[in-house]
């Protein structure tokens, strides 16, 4: 079940350092939203506040509200572990569990969430691997270690692992930055398919990628090194790349800085 994300007045800290300040935005269900901006502008930090991974970092804390449909993820009654079960995440570097087989990697999240019959589990694993366009490549070696796959395959394995638990939202933190162009293309095609079922937020350094895969694009920037990152604007991707309303966005898009 894809859900809407509604962020208001969100500020995140690393210890006493303010990493991002006063961010508000809405992400529609079944859409792809891309975050772009220079290094250190806080887009990854912001992404990690959406599934409460930011506070795992020593000193990390957050002020403000993140509503998933109508539920505030930062309400005191909410267990961060439960949040992460409904908001999946794919990381910059593919990180399958090296000690687990391909099958067990995909099943890992399911086994955390409850008990499944073996046939049920196999069905979901197959469906998730198909969903990640990986099934045909690995169906004959499901019990081989996941770390034996190529980088692009590993990243698709991580996507399969994330979607196996049917999250409401899928966060992707530069999922293609460690991959070659062919594997990148495979992931981008996959994102296009996944948005039918999930709300997707993707951080990327590659502006062409943002233009290719996303419906809406958010541009983040920071005034100077050490200053907190801010959301400059968020709009339809087409508009951001053709006729942004803020000069700084246009400067960044056209390569005048960053």
């Amino acid at each position, binding site marked *: 079940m894809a859900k809407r994300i509604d962020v208001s007045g969100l500020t995140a800290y690393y210890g006493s350092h303010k990493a991002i300040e006063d961010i508000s935005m809405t992400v529609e269900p079944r859409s792809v939203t891309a975050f772009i901006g220079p*290094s250190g502008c806080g887009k990854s930090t912001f992404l990690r506040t959406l*599934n409460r991974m930011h506070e795992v970092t020593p000193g990390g804390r957050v002020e403000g509200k993140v509503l998933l449909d109508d539920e505030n993820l930062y309400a005191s009654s909410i267990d961060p572990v439960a949040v*992460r*079960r409904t908001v999946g*995440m794919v*990381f910059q*570097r593919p990180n399958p*569990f*090296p000690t687990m087989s391909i099958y067990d990697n995909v099943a890992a999240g399911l086994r*955390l969430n409850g008990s499944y019959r073996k046939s049920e589990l196999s069905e979901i694993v197959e469906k998730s691997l198909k969903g990640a366009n990986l099934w045909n490549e690995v169906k004959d070696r499901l019990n081989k270690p996941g770390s034996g796959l190529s980088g692009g395959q590993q990243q698709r394995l991580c996507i399969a692992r994330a979607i196996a638990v049917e999250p409401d939202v899928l966060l992707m933190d530069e999922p293609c930055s460690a991959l070659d162009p062919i594997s990148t293309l495979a992931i981008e095609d996959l994102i296009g398919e996944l948005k039918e079922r999930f709300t997707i937020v993707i951080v990327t350094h590659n502006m062409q990628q943002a233009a290719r895969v996303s419906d809406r694009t958010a541009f983040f920037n920071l005034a100077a090194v050490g200053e907190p990152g801010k959301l400059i604007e968020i709009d339809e991707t087409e508009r951001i790349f053709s006729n942004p309303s803020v000069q700084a966005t246009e400067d960044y898009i056209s390569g005048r800085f960053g």
Partner: protein
Amino acid sequence: MDISTKSDTAPPPPPTVVPLEPGSRRPSVRLGDRIFLGLSRGSGILLLLIMAAIACFLAYRAALVLAKNDGNFLTTFEWEANGDPPVFGIAVLAFGTVVSSVIAMVIAVPVAVGIALFLTHYAPRKLSGPIGYAIDLLAAVPSIVYGLWGVLVLVPHLNGLYGWLDTYFGWTGILDWQGGAPRSLFTVGILLAIMILPIVTNVSREVFRQVPLAHQEAALALGATRWEVIRMSVLPFGRSGIISASMLGLGRALGETMAVATVLSPEFVIRTSLLDPGGGTFAQNIASKFSEATVQGQDALIASGLVLFVITLLVNGAARAIIARRKEYSGANA
């Protein structure tokens, strides 16, 4: 975590290659290189020579006395190696060594892994420093001090535990207590557990520290609790490290001499109950008997030392085999 490492950082400069001198078929070797090569190669060969010499000497001395042994070296429950003909066997020693070490491992490894996990994944940074330091201190205590502490403090305080074990587990036979002084293999095992705790803890802690953050975040992002993160990413990654740490500890337990000799009340028997005094270990037997041994008696002790050496080798080999069997699933592939 470091979120600043982006893909757009500049690649490292290519390594500088020293070109061969034109015209020469092989690179010229400088004097410094030649001296260093000779030194390092010489050290390596010297080490092998010393090892071989020790092994030959021990095997030779052992062979002399084994030829004269009137008992069966493997099964005789007696150690009269100074007599003529000598009668001695290692059965009691092998049993005592293995049993006390196994007890030590059973107690120490779970505790050590627990401490290591606490220090790396639960304790606040302010606390983990001092605790780690205290554990290092534990490793710095000389073994004779452990022995004295064992016999003066531990032994007099074990009657309660022995009585409890006897009441609830006496029916097993192996934890049946007749009421003798608790200077048994079991007490030795407890003492050895304390002694090997620091090394097992320290090695495990280093291994757990090296678990890549990426693997732990992978588990976290799936909605794992802290314990589930440990079970899914930390323990599997650290498995071979825990085995290595245990083997280091086991090596120390197998060879521990002074502490065992101080605490154990030795006797050349094998008791079915671990709580009854008596028994012995290889190292303890050598230490206790060496001063009064004739040349022939020394040879017999050397023979027993060789057996300890073989046991240690076997244990290490087994550990390596366990690690190698699951190599492709190990964290080294990550």
